[in-house]
């Protein structure tokens, strides 16, 4: 585990992918929040949180992600998650994150879902 977490934004048309590298703890909050702000420029309609290179997510990290998903809901953005281990998929499900963020096994699956008509688009608040 290390404290040097980075979160970088990659744009694919109107989808912003936030690649998280390192541990997701309170130490990562600033990096993830900044990446979210960078991702939500005008025209973005979906955000994918890519955790393939995330080593560890603790309860504080879950709280930060709840905050991100809540903000995305308010902004009417579709949010998807990829790269989670089965352990963290269960945890996301337990705390209710999967109600508002779709989970996909691969980045390509997440991107393909973003391209579809949002049948399961979560209702913004």
């Amino acid at each position, binding site marked *: 585990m290390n404290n040097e977490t980075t979160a970088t934004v990659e744009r694919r048309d109107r989808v912003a992918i936030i690649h998280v590298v390192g541990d997701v703890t309170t130490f990562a909050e600033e990096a993830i929040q900044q990446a979210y702000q960078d991702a939500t420029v005008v025209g973005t309609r979906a955000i994918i949180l890519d955790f393939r290179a995330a080593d560890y997510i603790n309860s*504080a990290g879950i709280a930060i992600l*709840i905050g991100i998903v809540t903000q995305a809901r308010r902004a009417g953005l579709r949010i998807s998650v990829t790269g989670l281990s089965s352990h963290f998929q269960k945890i996301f499900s337990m705390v209710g994150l999967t109600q508002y963020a779709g989970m996909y096994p691969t980045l390509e699956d997440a991107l393909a879902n973003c391209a579809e008509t949002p049948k399961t688009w979560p209702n913004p608040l």
Partner: protein
Amino acid sequence: MAESALTDEIRRLQARIAELERRNFQLQTIYDIGWELERRPELLLDPTATDSLRVILTTIMGAFGATCGTILQTGLDYVDAIVIQRDFEAETHSATWSSTALSADYCRWRANAPVQPRSWLAARPGADEDASFVRWLRAGGLQVWVPFQVDDQTIGGVGLGQRFTGEPYQVDDVALLENIVDNALVRLRQIRLLAQSLAHQREQYRIRGLFEQFMVPQVVDMLLDGRLKLGAHGQRQTATILMADLRNSTPLIEQLHSEAMVCILNDYFAAMTEIVFRYEGTVDKFMGDSILAIFGAPISHQSDPDLDDVMRAVRVSLEMQAAFTDLAATWQLDSLAEKPVGLGIGICTGEVVIGSIGSAKRLEYTAIGPPVNLAARLSKLARGGETYIDERTYLAASPALKVRRLRPIRAKGFRQPVRIFQVREICPADLRK
């Protein structure tokens, strides 16, 4: 029918496993809080409540999937309290000092609260629903509140609001939250104790750094562990004062580059200090090219029959002269100065006031009194290579000293002319001790 029962059983077991996994994740919070706090060295430098409480609140919110939460920490007197609030829906994260009224409400609420249940659960209204503090909890959207209990005192608490899943909190959640809070408080207390210990250690290092410039390490050890007191308010006592002064050094200052002069002075002070320390004296201060040393404080050798403080001072003076001669040869000063550069030393024994003297911002352990002034005067009278002593020093050391009697001098603070002597040598018998 049997297949249906089996399916039900599998579902029941799956639900049970899911519940256990959820509990396991929540219990993991106990570890997470410790992990988060221990990796914040700033908490050890400044263990303020705010930052550590922010970490605890965020971690607990994540464990329970809460979208808002509040931590309140009061002092034991309930005069005021700090309130940390985080609300993902409202996108707020704040730390504020609460009004006295909130703290008073909390105090009243806790004072009237029954012993059991310890915590408050919105879904389980109690008899205290009309209490101002409970109204404050409900107004803040909190659904569960667990007090911080330390030694049977309540010093705040943590509350959680609506969950992301929308599920209400259950009695089991409250019990788990109580355990998490208790463990977090233990962790917090450990970190604060460690911070206090480190602060104490830093202070000891600072004091050691300060005193080791002037005193031998053994004496600093005695000061730090309390075996020796510095007499912070000053104490009157007998001590022998030694002042060494560079004679004919003015031409050197004029001719040498400032860097070269600083190098020479540093070599000189280092060599003289080493000799003072070897005889367990204290270097009071350096003044220009003079050095003032005290023998007899803070550690006294008056009862040492082999080498009392007076004899230590005299022997230091002779060793200083020898060491200076060697240094001067190394520096090749003779080619730079018209008159030979040398060390003039004055030694006086008498009553002085010794202690930590100065202001709150700058204190120094020093001696003041007529012997200090007289030692300074004698060091100016002595020519390079000479050591002058007053009569009291001479009388204390006379059996062991060969001296030359000098013409008495008039000195400030002394009504009568002061008899002074030049040290020639220490008798061989004394040197053998």
